[in-house]
């Protein structure tokens, strides 16, 4: 049975590239309004999982369920938005246009436009073409696009990649604020310290398998019998993966 807060359930997602299994029966749940961290080292399958869930990469198996019913392709598109890492969309366009396009083409949330721009510090960058932005600036512009999307669940791949410490903290605060307003966030993060700062719950991914799911306390309880040195997320991750 699903708890009343569960909005979506990812079940038995599998993806193979020839003989290589990138994802193997990955299952977890996504609760409404939470910030869920998908934690794992590079190559653990985080991006592959997001791409499969976002519908831009075919999965070999698995389903996204609401209740016990798999979402149709149309329902998935209306529910989940995947924000990839390391992309430079519409490179010659200024940030202002990208935001307008997000609202115009995707039917984005125009009512939070000002807040998103202000919280992510994009005001001075609005007239800059996207290709001229630094890595951190580009990441903030991408996050603005993601936050403005109309879908209730935002899956952001490495949202803190390229950000300095101050920016990481500011972005984490912004993400928490939007989650507090009811938006569900699923963040793939390879820096465990960043994840601990922002996420409510965690899914630990290693070698394409989900090795644990829960809050810090729940994971700590799981990790204790396996010899976790402390209730620190890094130690928990090492013990469970």
């Amino acid at each position, binding site marked *: 049975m699903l708890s009343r807060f569960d909005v979506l359930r990812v079940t038995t997602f599998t993806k193979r590239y020839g003989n290589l299994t990138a994802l193997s029966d990955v299952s977890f749940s996504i609760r409404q309004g939470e910030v869920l961290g998908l934690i794992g080292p590079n190559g653990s399958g985080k991006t592959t999982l997001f791409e499969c869930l976002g519908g831009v990469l075919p999965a070999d198996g698995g389903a996204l369920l609401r209740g016990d019913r798999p979402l149709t392709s149309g329902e998935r*598109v*209306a529910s989940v938005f995947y924000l990839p890492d390391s*992309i430079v*969309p519409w490179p010659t366009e200024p940030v202002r246009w990208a935001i307008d396009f997000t609202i*115009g*083409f*995707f039917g984005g949330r125009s009512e939070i436009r000002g807040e998103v721009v202000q919280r992510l510090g994009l005001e001075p960058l609005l007239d800059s073409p996207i290709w001229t932005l630094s890595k951190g600036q580009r990441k903030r512009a991408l996050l603005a696009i993601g936050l403005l999307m109309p879908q209730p669940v935002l899956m952001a791949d490495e949202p803190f990649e390229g950000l300095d410490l101050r920016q990481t903290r500011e972005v984490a605060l912004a993400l928490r604020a939007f989650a507090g307003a009811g938006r569900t966030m699923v963040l793939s993060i390879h820096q465990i310290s960043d994840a601990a700062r922002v996420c409510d719950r965690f899914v630990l991914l290693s070698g394409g398998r989900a090795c644990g799911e829960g809050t810090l306390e729940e994971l700590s309880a799981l990790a204790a019998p396996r010899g976790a040195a402390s209730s620190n997320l890094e130690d928990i991750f090492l013990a469970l993966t």
Partner: protein
Amino acid sequence: MRSPRSAFRWLVNKEWRELVASRSWWVLLVAMGPLVGVSFISAVRTYGEASGLNGTSAGVGEAFSPLIGIWAPTFSACELAAAFLLPFVAIRLVSGDRQSGALKLELQHPMPAFARVGAKALVLAAGWFIAFAAPLAAILLWKSYGGSVYPPELATVAMGHVLNAGLTIALAAAMASLTEHPSTAAILTLGVTVGTWIINFIAAVNGGVWERAAGYTPTAMVAEFQHGLVRLDVTLVALTLIAAGLTFAAIWMRLGMTVRRRAYESIAVGALAAAAIFACAFVTASWDTSESRSNSFSEPEEDALRQIRLPLRIEAHLAPEDPRRFDLEHRAIVKLRRVMPKVQVDYVSATSIGLFEQTSAHYGEIWYDLGGKKVMSRSTTADGVLETIYSLAGISPPIEKDDVFRGHPLAVPPKGAATVFYGIWPAAIVAGLFFARRRRV
């Protein structure tokens, strides 16, 4: 989500901005002026000299048609641009989203893939129409010289080049969608273009089925339109290929589908297109829009030929590379097929060049069989063919009317054309580029 109509408008706007931002399109625009200019200036000069300019004997060009003398060479610049420049513009527009990662964002909108490709194709067509301003300038110059313009034949030439551009866009879009990298798409697109040239070459050597297939290659299609001939089968085949190419592009744009499913869908589209092309090959309707009726016999002759109800079969013992066969086909049979769609023409030869068949007793013979009555002739001219058919059918040759095409000689130099195409045109494009860049930021 926004209404599909509003979203589509946003997408078209985005594609337009991408086109304006792409250097390849500006290069195409800049190149179009000089390309059209070289062809137009040379054509006007030749036309003028044949009409009596600079002391050449006047009267030679009296049967000159602007369609053949001016528009075919001038518009041939568009064929060059469509083969070597337009594919890069199309590939840039289709591959750009994949390269930048924008496709992964845009694919998460529920818009059908065909609408996405349609938006790109619409914008590319608009970009091509803007490039068409160069031949349009040539038309205006020609008018300013006092040259004759016959709109139906001009529209036919333009239509041929629009269809050719459509084929290029569809092919390039399909290749760009299929491949990971734009350079691979460019190689494949040019490979297909070269492949069609090879088909034309094989057809010239071997004839038969190859000759029939070569009739549907872009080069052959453009050549017919440049002669003012609109063949419905060729037009339908071109439209089918354009639709198939764009559908193929839409199929491979859906990154979330398995490769196997996309491959099956592509095979199904290919099979449907092949069936449609096969069906189109049986369509015989055609229209001669040339002022000189260069693709038709005279009206009295056509009326006389229409009286013949019996099935006509022609067996020509001529090799594919024999110039007499070319004459027979292009000066007589093409016109005959337009009046008598059911005429059956068979070419018989043991070799491709026919050089060593000359000693054979039957080589060069053209046998006509009308309802069992047979006659042989060796003439490959239109008059000779008609005479044979009339005698076989027992019809007296019709009396020619006086309203024969006399031509539009024009002995003028291409005044001001160099300034327009080599000076004003590039300057206007560079100014346009500067203005577009300033507006963007």
